[in-house]
């Protein structure tokens, strides 16, 4: 059962393919062989599977009739091979299919005239036998040519006589520059000075021709070839390949070749162990290379994974967790509305929330394809990133210039209207720099404040709150209440801190006083008053410094509270409390509780106002 069937049942229009599905039964029925002499009912007994009866097909007869053609006529046709270069004096014959338009050839009925010696000649005179199709494969190398003058002016050598050079070039031509063969067949016998060619071999032994190595032959040949090349065409007029050849021939170094061959010989003469060692080294190299290859592969894969598909729009908004949060919600809402829409059908969704995802879906279509194309190089992450990419350009997020966007009750607005402060308050819109991931309860936020404090301080704070009749856990933690509570809490902690500090100072003062008394007593005993004065002054300075510190602390607290009360619209009360504070600071010791209660009273008042 497919989704199509489901749609059928529910009478929903098919989403993807509006065209009707092809009927499968039609297809199976089509190629059924038509068995003759078999009732249709009997045939249909087999159902989808045709009855296994092999129809008699007269193969052999058919084929026999099909290939009835006159037998091909063949003739023994004479041919020559132009590659021989003997003007077709050798006429061989092979069997060829007779063609109507081809050369008529001799009638095969009179074979006795053919083998005769002059028969070949007369045949040639009568008509030219065709050329062999293989003649074109005859390729000859071109060997440098020179005449006597050129040799004398360019190619003189102390090592080589002209005869020997001629002989070398002849061999090179004959063996198509296959040097091993040239060297193998190189048997230059210097001409005896007199005309005694008859026993040339015996004089050759006497004159003892120089044994030429392969490198010698090559060097001489390349020398001749390069020089003749330069004679025919000066080097500056040569084309590029010509010049390269010229260079190569000129730079032939027989000594280097000889060394290379020695090296090759040594390589062949390696012992088994050496060979094995080299083999193992080669194996090792291969392994190392393979490892680097794999490493590079992995690294590339890693890079691909780290790499994000390039987008044309700014993706900074998704880099923060808040952005991702918004995206997730956006996706969820899109998904939800999509489902709803598909059921209701297009046009039904009148809600603004429904309209937005609709446009988002339509927009994300091509983008998805784009993202797939972009992620083609890194297919591993395409699954994870595809939807993100596609949902990215939806208006909700694309238009949100601010980093985060917190919804309160109502759905996000597609177009961004600047809200006035009044409206913001009415709709409960607020802006945050940063939001933690996931939903949280506000009172948890409050609880979190406690958790940073030590147990004793927590106790003190709760005591202070209890004194103010504020429950430690807020009954109705609206945003304003929590904000106020935070302010209050901040003040309380500041107070607690201050108290701690003052306690400490007090203790110190007491200690110092005790010391002083002790000292005075000692002075009284000794009768010196100078040092004590100084110390008292020092103490005073010390105290002053401390006071300044605390002053600053309280200032900070006051500011925080001020900002909080701005939001909470408790302006005048806050001003009073701010004014209060220096006063509270002035009288230490007993003034603690009073100031605290006063503080709490003002904040409490504002909180109560908020509740209303």
């Amino acid at each position, binding site marked *: 059962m497919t989704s199509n069937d489901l749609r059928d049942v529910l009478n929903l229009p098919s989403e993807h393919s509006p065209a009707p599905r092809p009927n499968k039964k039609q297809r199976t029925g089509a190629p059924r062989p038509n068995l003759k002499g078999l009732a249709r009912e009997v045939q249909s007994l087999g159902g989808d599977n045709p009855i296994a009866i092999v129809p008699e097909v007269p193969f052999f007869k058919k*084929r026999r009739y*099909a*290939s009835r053609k006159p037998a*091909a006529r063949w003739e023994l046709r004479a041919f020559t*091979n132009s*590659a*021989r270069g*003997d003007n077709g*004096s*050798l*006429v*061989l*014959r*092979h*069997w*060829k*299919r007779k*063609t109507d338009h081809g050369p008529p050839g001799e009638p095969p009925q009179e074979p*006795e*005239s*053919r*083998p*005769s*010696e*002059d*028969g*070949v000649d007369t045949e040639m005179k009568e008509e030219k036998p065709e050329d*062999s*199709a*293989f*003649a074109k*494969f*005859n390729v000859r190398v071109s060997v440098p040519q020179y005449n006597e003058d050129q040799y004398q002016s360019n190619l003189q050598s102390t090592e080589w006589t002209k005869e020997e050079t001629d002989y070398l070039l002849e061999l090179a031509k004959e*063996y198509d520059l*296959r*040097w*091993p*063969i040239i*060297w*193998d*067949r190189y048997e230059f016998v210097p001409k005896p000075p007199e005309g005694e060619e008859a026993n040339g071999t015996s004089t050759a032994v006497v004159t003892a021709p120089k044994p030429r190595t*392969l490198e010698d032959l090559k060097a001489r040949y390349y020398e001749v070839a390069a020089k003749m090349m330069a004679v025919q065409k000066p080097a500056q007029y040569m084309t590029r390949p010509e010049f390269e050849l010229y260079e190569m021939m000129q730079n032939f170094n027989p000594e280097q070749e000889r060394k290379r*061959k020695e090296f*090759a*010989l040594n*390589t*062949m003469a*390696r*012992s*088994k162990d*050496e*060979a094995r060692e*080299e083999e193992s080294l080669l194996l090792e190299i291969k392994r190392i290379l393979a490892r680097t290859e794999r490493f590079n592969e992995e690294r590339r894969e890693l890079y691909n994974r780290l790499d994000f598909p390039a987008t044309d729009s700014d993706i900074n908004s998704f880099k923060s967790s808040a952005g991702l949060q918004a995206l997730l919600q956006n996706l969820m809402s899109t998904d939800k509305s999509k489902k709803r829409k598909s059921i209701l059908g297009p046009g039904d969704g009148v809600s603004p929330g429904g309209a937005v995802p609709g446009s988002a879906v339509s927009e994300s279509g091509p983008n998805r394809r784009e993202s797939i194309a972009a992620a083609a190089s890194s297919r591993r992450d395409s699954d994870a990133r595809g939807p993100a990419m596609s949902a990215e350009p939806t208006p909700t997020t694309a238009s949100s210039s601010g980093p985060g966007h917190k919804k309160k009750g109502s759905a996000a607005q597609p177009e961004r209207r600047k809200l006035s402060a009044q409206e913001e308050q009415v709709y409960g819109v607020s802006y945050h720099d940063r939001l933690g991931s996931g939903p949280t309860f506000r009172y948890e936020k409050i609880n979190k404040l406690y958790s940073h404090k030590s147990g004793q301080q927590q106790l003190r704070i709760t005591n202070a709150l209890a004194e103010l009749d504020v429950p430690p856990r807020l009954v109705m933690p609206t945003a304003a209440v929590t904000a106020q509570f935070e302010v209050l809490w901040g003040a309380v902690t500041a107070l607690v801190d201050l108290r701690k500090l003052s306690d400490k100072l007090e203790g110190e003062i007491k200690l110092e006083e005790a010391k002083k008394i002790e000292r005075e007593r000692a002075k009284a005993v000794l009768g010196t008053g100078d040092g004590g004065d100084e110390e008292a002054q020092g103490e005073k300075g010390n105290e002053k410094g401390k006071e300044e510190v605390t002053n600053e602390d309280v200032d900070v607290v006051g500011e925080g509270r001020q900002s909080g009360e701005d939001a909470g619209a408790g302006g005048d009360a806050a001003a009073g409390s701010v004014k209060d504070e220096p006063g509270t600071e002035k009288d230490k010791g007993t003034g603690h509780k009073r100031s605290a209660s006063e503080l709490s009273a003002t904040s409490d008042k504002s909180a109560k106002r908020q509740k209303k």
Partner: protein
Amino acid sequence: MSQQPLSSSVQPTDIYGGDEVSALVLDPGYCSTRAGFAGEDHPKLVIPTPYHHINGRDLFGDPIVTPRAGFEVRHYMNRDSVVEDWDAATRAWEYLLVQRLQPPRPTPPSKNRLNVGDDGDVEMGEDGAAADATDALEKPLAENPLLMAEAPWNPPKAREKAIEVCMETWGCPAFWLGRTPVLSSFAAGKPTALVVDVGGANISVAAVHDGILLKRSVQRSPAAGVWLSSQIRSMWKTNEPKVDVVPFFMVESKKPVEAGAPPDARLRTFDFPISDSFRAFEEERVVKEFKESVVEVWRGPGRFMAPGNEDYAKSQPGRVFEMPDGANQMWREQRYRVAEGMWDEAAAYPAASADEPNPSKAQTIPALIKAALDGVDVDLRPNLLSNVVVTGSTSLLNGFNDRLNQELTAMYPGVRIKIHAAGFTSERRHGAWIGGSILASLGTFHQMWISRHEYDENGPSIVEKRCK
């Protein structure tokens, strides 16, 4: 329908380079001579090269196994596979090429007595041209180019004689002499190869580069089939119960005997003297059978004479060979030892006769290969070693290729060695002929033939110029 064969009206030169010109291929060897048509995959005719001579008449063709008075076996080649008796050789080859390979010719009209006129006289050709034509017709191979195989060390004289016979006596339109290693490498489908030809009379090792023999690499040794036979005879002589070779034709009847027991057979007696050559030829058949069924090459590791190997061979199951007279014996380590002389000169049995000495160290197969490779350029050697072509019927000894591979790997440990040996026995035995058949039927080869015209112009010395 679609199963029609390829159209024969188009010349498929790009696929198949063949172009049949009804050439004949002849490969005369020391032990057997093969002849056939180019383009076929096996010689039509294979006959032993030794021929029979009786009462002043030469009999060629298949061997005759029953002795007759005055019957002897002759040989027109020497042990170097070089023809010595050209008269007999010509007749032997003519027997093959003309009598056996050509269809019977119709009698010329001037002689068939069908054209007898009313006056009882035969209408003869008047002018000389007609007489020339009939003369030419009598040249038996006027329609077939001939390709002959020769040993790589064939002297120029013999080559010239060959083309002379071919052109003058048989009237071939074209001729070519191919060297055996080149043809064998063609048969193996390799233009570049190191050919190890272990034939009847000689082992030859030669490098072939691009279809041309490298002359400086040619190495030869007599330690081949015939020498192996003499080793077997020596081994039989020194065996504990001495083995006497009684050829088949001597045995009238025999009774089965225990292994190692003296034979119990009735021998034939002839009232005429049996020539030594015939007896040797017949004995050779027995030895050959022993060679084929019992002798094996020690595959290694190491040489057979290395300590321990012989004992190991003794412990392995042996092979029983029954002589024609019924004497039989189990052969164990000896069957390895006989062939070991090819590889290790120290392992050979003492030579049977002074004129057939055992191979020296330089004539063992590994030494031959090394010498052959030393005769070619260094750059070619690795390529040659990866294209070693083994051919010749003696290479069919069991374990030959294994041993060769082992020896070569020991000699050249760092080089890739690949031995190419045809799987079919017949391809191994007639390798050179098959290569000649391939060559002569190639379309591109037809420019190489020495034509009659060239022969007429230059004389027999052209063969030296052209068939390099």
